[in-house]
Structure formats: C-alpha cells, structure tokens
C-alpha cells in the first residue's frame, strides 16, 4: 500500500494521482468527509476530557489514552458544523499525524472505502467552511459525495493552535 505525502505545491491532478486509496469516512453535521485510513490510530467513544484553561473553544481538553495524554478537538465547533452534542453515540477518531496523537470528535463514523483514481474529482474552488487548501478532492461512491481532507495539514496548521508554531 503506497502512502505518499500530499504536497501543497503540486497541482490538484498530481495530488490525486498520488493519493492512497483507502479512506475512513465520517460525518460532521450533514456532510460526509474522508481521511486517509493510515492516519487513523483508533476510534473510541467520547469521554469527558479534562479542560485546559485558556484554550480555544474547539479544544475540549485532554484525555488519558492508555497512559498518553491526548488532546481532543471538536471539529464541529471549530468549523461551525451542526450541533456539538455529546451522547453515547458520539465518536472520537484518534489520529496519528505530524508525530502527535490527537483526538477528533465527529458525529458518526461510517465505513472504510477504497476509491479508485477515477472516482476522485478535484474540488472546485469555492469558499466553504474548510479553507480549501485542506481539501484534496471530492470522491463519489454510489450516491454519496465525500469531501476528502488532508488531515495532517489541517491538524498541524497554524490556526488549529495545536502545534507550537516556530516564531522566528
């Protein structure tokens, strides 16, 4: 299974060509998203994190994951998607990106699907909730449209305030 880093410089077509094929799909609000399965470490149910003072509202806090302290972020809050409610069906996707382990709260997780190159289209350049630089393409499976995201770039991006940005 080839796993290649997506570069921001290359054209969308070149990006698509280098995409790996398996995606984990999940729902945020009414939209469905897909991220590379290799970045996903595990999927857990939601447990109330320990809040961290003075953190942005979308960083819910940290939880104990078998001895490791993992921050939990709620994408629904960050990108204003749907209702940020927490019940027994709320799911947390634990990601392993940029050398860190981070948890992401989503509404629900669907399945892992394989997308062939012809099923992925480049994303049109419309301004949406996500800054489009994170969207690597749109996948179509049956009737569903999946918004494919470069999760590593998103998490490590400056506006997530998760990673200390080098200041000088």
């Amino acid at each position, binding site marked *: 299974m080839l796993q290649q880093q997506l570069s921001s410089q290359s054209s969308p077509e070149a990006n698509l060509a280098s995409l790996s094929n398996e995606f984990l799909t999940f729902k945020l609000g009414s939209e469905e998203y897909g991220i590379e399965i290799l970045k996903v470490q595990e999927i857990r149910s939601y447990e109330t*994190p*320990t*809040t*961290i*003072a*003075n*953190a942005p509202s979308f960083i819910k*806090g*940290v*939880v*104990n994951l078998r*001895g*490791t*302290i*993992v*921050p939990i972020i709620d994408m629904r809050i960050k990108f204003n998607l749907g209702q940020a409610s927490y019940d027994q069906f709320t799911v947390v996707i634990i990601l392993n990106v940029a050398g*860190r*382990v*981070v948890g992401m709260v989503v509404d629900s997780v669907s399945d892992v699907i394989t997308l062939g190159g012809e099923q992925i289209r480049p994303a049109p350049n419309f301004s949406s909730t996500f800054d489009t630089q994170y969207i690597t393409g749109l996948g179509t499976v049956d009737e569903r449209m999946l918004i494919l995201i470069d999760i590593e770039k998103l998490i490590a991006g400056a506006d997530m*305030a*998760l*990673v*200390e940005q080098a200041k000088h």
Partner: protein
Amino acid sequence: MSDNSHQGASPAASDGVDLSQFFQVFFEEAGENLSGMETMLLALDIDNPVEEDLHAIFRCAHSIKGGAATFGFQDIAELTHELETLLDKLRKHELKPTREMIDLMLTAGDALKAQLARHGGSGEGNVVDTTELVEELRMLAAGNMGDAKPKAQVRALDIVIGPLTNPATADNLFELFKEIPDMGIIVARDDGKADAGNKRHFHVETTWKDDELLDLFSFHVAKECIAIQPAASIAAKNDDAGFGLFDDDAPAATPQGQLTPQAEVAVAAQKAEANKPEARAQAAQSESATLRVNVEKVDQLINLVGELVITQAMLSQQGRALDPVHHQTMLTGLSGLERSTRSLQDAVMSIRMIPMAVVFNRFPRMLRDLAAKLGKQVELKTSGEATELDKGLIEKITDPLTHLIRNSVDHGIEMPDKRIESNKPAAGTIFLSASHQGGSIVIDVRDDGAGLNRERILAKARQQGIEVSDSMTDQEVWQLIWAPGFSTAEKVTDVSGRGVGMDVVKKNIAALGGTVELDSAEGHGTRVSVRLPLTLAIMDGMSVAVNGEIFIIPLASVVESLQVREGMLRTVVGQGRVVEVRSEYLPVVSLHDVLNASHTRADDSTPLLVIVESEGAKTALMVDELVGQHQVVVKNLETNYRKVAGVSGATIMGDGRVALILDVMHVVGTANSRMSNSPANSLKH
C-alpha cells in the same frame, strides 16, 4: 606511520570472522579509557605519584592498544604503544614523571580521541598526523628530557647561504626574523661579509622546521643556495636552557625567541587527603560492578514502572471501597503491592540519576588549557560532586556551565600581577558546587576575581540604548548582562566577549525549567547560581478541586493549608487580597481567576487556602476543596499538545481521568502581576 584507515570494509576480518560488529563497543570503551586516563593524569602529583594511579593509567593505555591492534587500527595502536612504553617506565620507577611528560601524554590523548572519532565515524576527516607525537614520546621514554618539548622544539642551526651574486641580499633575512613573530633569533657569524666563496654564514635558533625556513628564505635568496645544518656546539646550551624553561617563567634568559612564558597552571581538584585511599578503593570496586546499558532500555523501564504505579494506584482506590472484613487477604495484598511498587519506583528513578562529578570532571582539563592560553593562573575547587542529576539534564547543563566557567576565567579572574597588586593570591580560584535544595538542585559557579563592574555595565547599556538610571540597585544592574549582545569585554577573545553567551545560557537554563541568578561584589568576585528542578517523572502531589476539576500542586512547594476565618482576608489598595498567617502577610491568589474558571463556591467567607512557596516567596492559593495527597506520574503535555502557561504537566488519576499539574512559579507570578494591573478589586474585609 602506517595508517590502515577503516573505510567501511573491516580490516580486522580474520578467519572469516567479521569483527565490525564489535567496533561500537571498542569505541565506547576506548573513549572511557581515554577520559579515565586524562582525569588521572591531571590529578597526578608529579612529586609524589601514587603507585596505583600509575598502574591504572598504564592499564588504560594498554587496553586501548590491545583493542586497536585487534581491530586493525594501526595508527591508534602505534601511538598507544609509545604511550604504554613511557607509562611502563614511569610505573616501574625507571623514569620520574615531569610536567612535560604529562602535557605530552595529554596531547597524545587528544590525538587518540581524534583518531577514534575518525575511525568511529564515516572514515572521513583528516588523517591525524602523529609522527611528531610518536617521536617525542619515544624520546621521553628514552630518558632524553632535554630536547623534547610538547610544543615546538627550539633548534640551533648553522645556515650557509651561497654562493650569492649579491651577498648583501642575505641581510634581508634579518628583516624576516624581525617582522615575523615567534620565528626565533638570527645572528650573523661572518660579520656581515661574504666569505671566499661568496657565501654568508648565519646562526639561527628557531622552532620552525627546515622546510618552513627554506620556504621563507626563498623570498630573498634562491632555495638551492641555502644549506641548513644543526649547530652542534649549541646543543649543550640547549639542554640547560631546556631544564631552565620548566622551572623558570621569566622569558628573559632563554635563547628562545618568542615562546610565550609557560604559565603555571596549578589545577587541583581539592579532596581531603584522607579520603583519597578510600575513594580509590571504592572507585576500583565500582569499576568492576558497572553494567553497560542502552539508555533506551532504561527509559522504557521507567515508563513501564510509571504505568505500574498508575495501575497500582487504581487498584488501591478500588480496594478502599471493599469491606475490610470480607476482603482481608485482598487488602493485605494490595498494601504489600503498594509498598513494593514504591520501592521499585525509587530504585528505577535512581538509575537515570548520575552524579554531577561527570560534569565537573571535564573542567580541570578545560581550565588548564584555558588558563595557559590566557596567561592566568586558576585553581578549581569543587564540592557536591556526588549530587545526582537526571542524565538528560546533565547533558544539557554542561554547555551553559562551560560557558559560565569560561566567562569567569576570561573576564572575572584577573592577570596574576593585578591580583597580587590587590592583595589577592596570584592564582584565582573558581568554586563549583552542587547541592539539593527543596525540590531543586542548585549549582553555583563562584570566582574570586574582579567582580562585575557596575559603571562599565551601565555605560555599555546606555551605549546599546537600554534604559538605565544611576539609581538602579546593584541587582538590577547585574540583570542587564542577560540582554542579548551585551558584553563589556574590552576585546573579543575566541573564548568569550562577543556578547553571544549570557542570554543563550539563560535561555538554555530556562528551557530546562530552571532559573539563574547573578551576584557580584566589585573587586571580590562573582557568583552565578543555577537552579534546576529535579524532573522526576514521579512526584508527590496534593490534589485540590477548583470548579469541579482536579489540579495537582507539587507537594514540595506546599507549605501548609488552612481554612481562613472571617476577617483574616484583607485587601491592600490596588494590590489585591492578602491574608495574615502568624503575623506574616501573604498575597492571596484565586485559582479560579488564574484558570479562568467560574466560582462554584457561593460562599467565599471561609475559603480554603493552600500556602505554597516558590523561589523564596510564599503565596496563598485559594481553592474549592482539598481532595487528597498522593504520588502522581508526571506526563508531558507537550508530547501531543503544546505548552500551557501555568501548567507544568499532567497526570492520570486513579479513576483514569487526567489532572493538570500546576506550575506554581508561573501561577504565582502571573496572578501577582494581574492583581497589580486590575483596576477594581473586590473588597473583602
């Protein structure tokens, strides 16, 4: 000198056995032997060498030689063989040790280090030319002490130049000797007149090599005309001069040209004489009882023990809910488990702790070389070498300490004559000490030099555009030193003075979670104090509840906790609240405010206060509840998240939840500044 450099393929394959897998072990052991040898050489008393030390040094060289020969590193083997020969004679008392021998052996040690580095690395880098060293070692071993010098050898030469078409051109050689420093002395033997064959005769004493002289002379006369021969008649005089050079610092009476006066550097690690034999016996014992372990394995062990502590804490917590009568055996087992776990954790934590001696030991050599270079005399006194520090911290503290010591020698300690003028002993002293204080380790670097010059610092600060006023206290003036680019050094040496050092030192120490303080008295000396937290992964903490969340306060910082009665809280105008505790007024910091949490206690009239101490100052923290006191495993928050102000780490409680550990120093600092900035303070009487 033959050099079978190791270039990827193993030169030591014999009988098809590939020895390259053992290279790493050889390099590590050789490195240890070398540093052991260096330490012992430095500590060797020339007049009264301890028998056991000589044997030990010999063994070091012998081991290195054996390993090098086995693995086919000819150059290392050759150099160590000469060392070994000399050391053998010393330990058999066939030769007496001299300062010059020690210097030469130290230089040989450096060369060996370079060779090892080259072989141990990629095989690149310059081949270390040890022909001279080998020669000099041989000469010393042969008992030929007169001519052998660790630095350059002064040679007396008879130079005949000619035949020359214009004999006067040879006079230009005088100019050469005049203009080029350290070249030596030239004297005409022919009264400035050419002889019958149009040749000129000169007598030269120089440290330069023949080919270097030829190169230089060829500026004025053709190379083929120059004939250089050793001057036989001068050799005898050289011997005396050679001896004279070691005892006599005065540059005058020696025939040498420009050799810098040998600065006496008496560097002695001061230990009580009585302790020496015991320390030696102990050292011999511990040598054989050590084990080489990969650091990663130790770290893994520490992590696993940490997990064990968490699980055990959870079990203990569950156990408390059990009926003691029905579950007697279970509870007994659990308390036994708790005892064993605590012991295990103490033992494992101590594995990574290394005594400060490891850091201190590199300084004698550095000081010796440095002082010699600067022409100063410096002694090093250490105390607290046995104080232990985590391995990771030790590696990171070495650079800042090195810089501080270099600063002391370069700028602090004055030249010997100036010191004598001020009624100080000619040799300056640097005191290095380490000690445990509370939950920190304090390392002091103190010198009895000139101290910080207040006026110079103020002037330099003004020059750099920093706001200063003459009414600043001494302490405030010293703080200016930390500014980047700040240096009052009159000239920049390659040792220090560029103004790059002090702020980097402060930054490095802050990165370790420590603090550094300066104190100085002009004319008497300077003291720099470095305070580092003992970053134990497991520590004792007191858990408190603030707004329903649990926070841990390091127990080492907690002085006491109390419930305040009505009226004990007062407000100081514009400063915030204070509480009176046994006739001492302490500022009150509400953790709710610091953590931006909302108040859950409706009734603040009898708040719970936890009094903490940080950097000598006490503060009272207001919390909702005192939950308990237990050992916590410190987890790093920054591994997956980032540094959070006011929080020094996180831990996992018995119920599996995460609790944040307060950074007491920061909480106190922030809240205090916030208090003084806030326009309105709630009034409570």
